[in-house]
Every structure is written in structure tokens, then in C-alpha cells.
């Protein structure tokens, strides 16, 4: 794939109660957003094991997005607070290890924020596009 028509692969982990519904709203409201995102629905961002992010990058994602309810709005009261702590640490670690910080984003998108979802996706895709195809520690076909 040449550099100018490169389309990044984005894996997005969305919480069932807010962001997934927000993305759904964007769809039903006919809000156009980039189609690079592969959505994986989870019950809560607190359920996103930071190693999912690592594993997505390893298996071919160029960018990862984790999105959940705004602080205080978590369906399980506090799941997104834990996620914020853990994924914040993960972002620091990834950056330290040499993964472009533009490849990983986290956002709060509520069920009524279809337009915010569009902006978040656009930003994520744009960042991943600028960062280019992820080569780093992606699983590659190894020579014999």
C-alpha cells in the first residue's frame, strides 16, 4: 500500500452503556465518520484489560481507542475511574517503549454524544494516519 492511500486500522473498545450507544446514535443520526474503526463492545471500560491494547497493536491495529462513560456516569459506578488510572499508566509505558502516543487514545462519549463520537473517531484516525502503519512490535511473518 502506498503512503498516500494508506488507511489505518483502528480497534475501538466501547463501553456498552455510553460510547457504544453514542456510536449507535451517530449511525442512526446519519452522522458521517471514518469507517476505519472496528468496534469491540465491552460491558465497561473498567473491563478493558490494558493488555488488550497491546494485543491489538501486536495483531495488526495501527491505532487503538478506548471510550466509555464520562466520570461519574459509569453504569457500574466506578469502572471508568479504574480504567482511567490503568490506561493512563499504559499510555506512559507505551510511549516510553517507543510506541507513538498518537496510536492510543481514550475518550468519554456519552449515549447522547453522536457528534462527539464523530470528532473522536476523526481525531483518532487522523493521528494514526499521521503516525503511519504500525511496524513496531507487530506480529510479523517471520522467516523460517
Amino acid at each position, binding site marked *: 500500500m502506498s503512503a498516500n492511500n494508506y488507511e489505518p486500522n483502528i480497534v475501538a473498545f466501547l463501553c456498552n452503556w455510553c460510547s457504544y450507544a453514542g456510536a449507535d446514535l451517530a449511525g442512526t443520526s446519519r452522522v458521517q465518520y471514518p469507517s476505519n474503526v472496528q468496534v469491540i463492545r465491552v460491558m465497561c471500560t473498567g473491563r478493558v484489560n490494558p*493488555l488488550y491494547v497491546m494485543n491489538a497493536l*501486536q495483531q495488526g491495529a495501527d491505532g487503538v481507542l478506548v471510550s466509555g462513560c464520562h466520570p461519574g456516569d459509569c453504569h457500574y459506578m466506578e469502572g471508568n475511574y479504574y480504567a482511567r488510572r490503568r490506561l493512563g499508566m499504559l499510555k506512559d509505558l507505551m*510511549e516510553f517503549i*517507543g510506541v*507513538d502516543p498518537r496510536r492510543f487514545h*481514550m*475518550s468519554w462519549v456519552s449515549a447522547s454524544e453522536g457528534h462527539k463520537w464523530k470528532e473522536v473517531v476523526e481525531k483518532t484516525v487522523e493521528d494514526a494516519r499521521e503516525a503511519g502503519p504500525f511496524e513496531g512490535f507487530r506480529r510479523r511473518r517471520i522467516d523460517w
Partner: protein
Amino acid sequence: MDLEKLRETAAEVAAREDVKYLIGWKKGTYGYRVAPGFIEDADGAAELIFSPLCTANLATYLTLVEKLPLPRGEEPDDRKTALMVKGCDSRAVAQLLVEKGIDRENVVVIGCPCPGMVDPELLAEKYPETEEPAEVKWTDDGFIVIRDGEETSVSRDELLAEKCRLCRYPNPVISDIMLGEPVETWEPAEDEGVNEVENKDVDEREAYWEEQFSNCVRCYSCRNVCPLCYCQDCILDRLNPTWVNRSVNFSENTAFNIARAFHLAGRCIECGECERVCPANIPLGKLNRKLAREVRDKYGFEPGLDPEAEPFQASYKPDDPEDFIL
């Protein structure tokens, strides 16, 4: 430290009826080597030592010992384990208590205030390892290296281990018995190792770690030596789901190292054991210290100080930093 006093105390503790054994340091089989010693009775205490070569963090043995199924009719041996700890080791004990990895009443902690350890590699570089027993001792302002019958005074800066330069807690934070007087704490040095990597740009950092992680042989000594890596069912051993493939290549090695370092975020007590034992000399300490620094600076949290504290990753504050969130 007074060795007589140490051995006397150890003998007393080892002889106690409610103590299974005492774990301390003893002279290794050659040269500078120091080995963990498992002392079961008062007589055994005579071989214990405490010197600038006792880098090993013995707290790891608290969770390493296998609990085997017992033959019918046999009672479990629930006597206590006595453990000699330096400042950093005691933080591991405290963190284990936070995580309820051990019971407080099952351990007897013998605290050894620690003036700082030597770096075994720096030492061997300047004063090569010998087959005859060799020793290092503390003086008021440095070390004395004793090998081949020769005594050489060395300044503290010359041989002090990196983790000890950065140490903020040379005195045990938790103990039942304290040996000797607390040492005077020193101003921790700036962490140049972490700074150096931080100051690189993303591509340089990637290249740096690629070189390091490519050397990893996945012996898991860093995981096994770590007092805080004690999961019965480690994700690295799991096959279903396979978090990290068994094959050894840069991708899987990086995944393994991310997983290891991340699981220690907010838990690592910076004893530096992972880095010491790594046969590939990967600077694992930099990963852990980077995370420890972030935890300290951003969240104002330090692990392994208060046995009653909440574990970092299983707690939160409503006003945790969220500047990275879109």
C-alpha cells in the same frame, strides 16, 4: 553492622518453636557470591552474613514456596517464616501485606538498615571475580574489597549500585526485630537511566528497546525473582487464551516485557532484582522506575510503605489526572 549481634538474634529466632526457618544471606560457593540461606536451627545461624554483596531480595521466597497436597492425616506446617530484609525488601513485604499475598502473623521480619549495596558487575569489572572466597565490607565512607588477601578501600560512589543511589528508604519500613541503628538516609540521585531514555524521540526509543528486547531469552528469571510477581496462574504461562505466544522473537518479547512491567505499575518497590538477574542484561529497572516515577509524580502514590494502604491499580481518586483523554 555487628555480625555477632545478627547471628545471635538469628539463632534465637531460628530456635523459636513457632518459626519454621529463617531466610537470610550466607556466603556463596566462590568469590563474591552470596546465596540465600535457609536456617532451621540455632546452629545454622553461624553462617549468616550481611554485607554490601547481599543484594538478593529474599521476600520473594515468601510466595515462592510450593504448597503441596498433604498425605492423609498429616497436618500442614503453619509455623512462621522469619525473613531478613533491607529497606527495599521490607517494602516488598509491606506491599505483599497490602495485596494480602501473605499474612502478617505468618512472618517474622528482621530488619537490617542498609547503607547501600555494591553493583556486582561494576565490582567484578574493577576487581575481577576469583575462585577463592572474597568479600566486601562497609566503611564509614565507602567499601573495602577483600580479595586474594588484599584489602582495597573504594569510595562509595565508585561501586554503589544504581538502585541504591536512587534509594529513598534504606531503613526497613516494617519489622519485628530491628538489627542495629537506622542508617542516615541520603539524597536520592536523579534517575539518569530513565531520563536518558525519556529524552530520546519516539523512534530512537523504539530502536533502543528493540535492541534490548531482542536479546531476551524468556527465561522468566525477572518474573520469578520478583517478590511481587507471585500469581499462581500467570498470564505468561496461559495457553487458553494465549496472551503471549511461546515463540521468542521481538514482537512476543516486547509483549512479555510490556505485560511484566505493566503488572508492576504502582506495585514495584524498586529493589532492582529483575535487572540484576537478567542474563541478557536488559535494563528492566528503567521500565519499572519510569512507571514508579509516573505513579509518584502524577498520582502521589508510593507502594510498599503502608500495609494498610489501598492497592494502586485497584483504587482511584475522582480527580486522577486525565489530560490524555480526548
